């Protein structure tokens, strides 16, 4: 089965007004989604990217330019990623569509991973 990468784009939000119950509910949804992927044997890997810090690198005429990101240019950042295996793009879309990230206003970029070796 090919592997797919789900890049979770999100807008940085302020959660300071979230109640304990609200946060509990968010986690429960993600855990349930992840569990359903795991139970189909399609979970590969997931990682959260740190919110703070982040750099943008580019080469200019004056040489290497390093700016602080990730918020410098985009209103949106990648919060983290999930790698899953799926039968096909259709199947991968089906699995990604269930991700609570979409419900909370985030965007998912879905890409097939080129097999190495």
């Amino acid at each position, binding site marked *: 089965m090919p592997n797919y990468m789900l890049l979770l784009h999100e807008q940085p939000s302020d959660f300071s007004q979230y109640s304990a119950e609200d946060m509990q509910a968010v986690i429960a949804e993600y855990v349930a989604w992840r569990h359903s992927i795991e139970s189909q044997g399609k979970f590969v890997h997931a990682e*959260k990217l740190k919110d703070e810090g982040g750099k943008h690198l580019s080469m200019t005429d004056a040489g290497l330019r390093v700016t602080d990101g990730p918020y410098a240019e985009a209103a949106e950042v990648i919060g983290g990623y999930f790698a899953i295996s799926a039968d096909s793009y259709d199947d991968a879309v089906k699995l990604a569509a269930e991700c609570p990230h979409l419900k909370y206003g985030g965007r998912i970029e879905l890409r097939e991973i080129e097999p190495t070796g």
Partner: protein
Amino acid sequence: MEQTSEINNFVGHLFRHHAGKMAAVLVRHFGVANIDTIEDAIQDAMITAMKRWPFSGTPDNPTAWLTQVAKNAVIDKLRREQKTVTIDDLEFAQEITPASHFEGEIDDDQLRLIFACCHSSISPDSQVALTLKIVCGFSVGEIARAFLSNESSVTKLITRAKGRLRSGEIAFEIPAGNELAERMTPVLKVLYLMFNEGYAPTAGSEIVRRDLCSEALRLAEHLAQDAKTTMPQVHALAALFCFHAARFPARVGSHGELLLLADQDRSRWSQELIASGLKHMTASARGNELSNYHLEAEIASVHAVAASLDETDWRRIVECYELLQSRSYSPIAELNKVIAIGQIENSEQTLDRLDQLEADGKLSNYFLFHAARAHYLADLDRIDAALDSYQRALSLSHNETTRRLIANKIGELKGDRNEHTI
């Protein structure tokens, strides 16, 4: 499906419960005066969990994880403010790792924290709001609902109260002597409100937030057992909780619907909790003190020991309501009294009493009043009027499960009427 509900149970209400437990542990280590830093750190730890756990999965010991993260955040903040921090990391790590003796210590810390929140320098309304916020992990919105207030008033109450905690004049201890009795009143009121919000949530879809009730019951039991805090009215409150909690298994039908007292299968009531309630009742009778909790517990006990609705000692219940009303009048208790009298009198008489009660206008926005009225109207075959009242009740109820119950009643009545016309 089963797995999903398993997960939901696993994470359960951990955050709210553990927000309270974390607060107790952290206040013991860092002091009452640092309450703002501690609360922010708890909120940040929960936000971190919310952002990280979807990717990393839930840690094996979520409480320990959260407490550790919150502790580090407190230390960082205090260091940035150039305050000296000394904390034995090893000791702390052992403390937040579940061990048999630990839960008891947290119970003690939570009681100390409740007493700090109920200090006499804090106004009564603020005491309750503050305790629900810090000890019970309620959000401002949830407190506003429990209080029938709005969020900005609750925020004001809490901000003012936290100023007192920050002053550093409030100790983290269970008071003694005369002070204890005085400070017990708000402590018990807080537990009462907690249980109430769990028993009949004002909004949302859950009928019984059992965990909130069991949390209130647990703290009441703890106060009742502790040699320093055991008092007749503490036992009365614990008894009241036990009797109500005993009915939980019978309150929800097979389709998740709310069942009224008349429709409950009494064999499903927890005899263990009823026995525990009766034990607390006995203990509450020591001394000459009579509190509202004594009377409410007695009403609940009459229900708990009755074999059926018809075999209930309604006269005793009416007497208790009258005593309650003579101590402090409440239109809602008056409504309950009229409904109890309705079990003795006929529907016509009860309807008259309800109409008299409506005259003072205090209950015109209370859904249960209209639901009760609808019940007696339907009993007298005044179907259209009954439907009107049920519609009114429906428009005033914000709890999903209660709304479903009322909608079912409306459906049944319409069905009956159609049968008659055919």
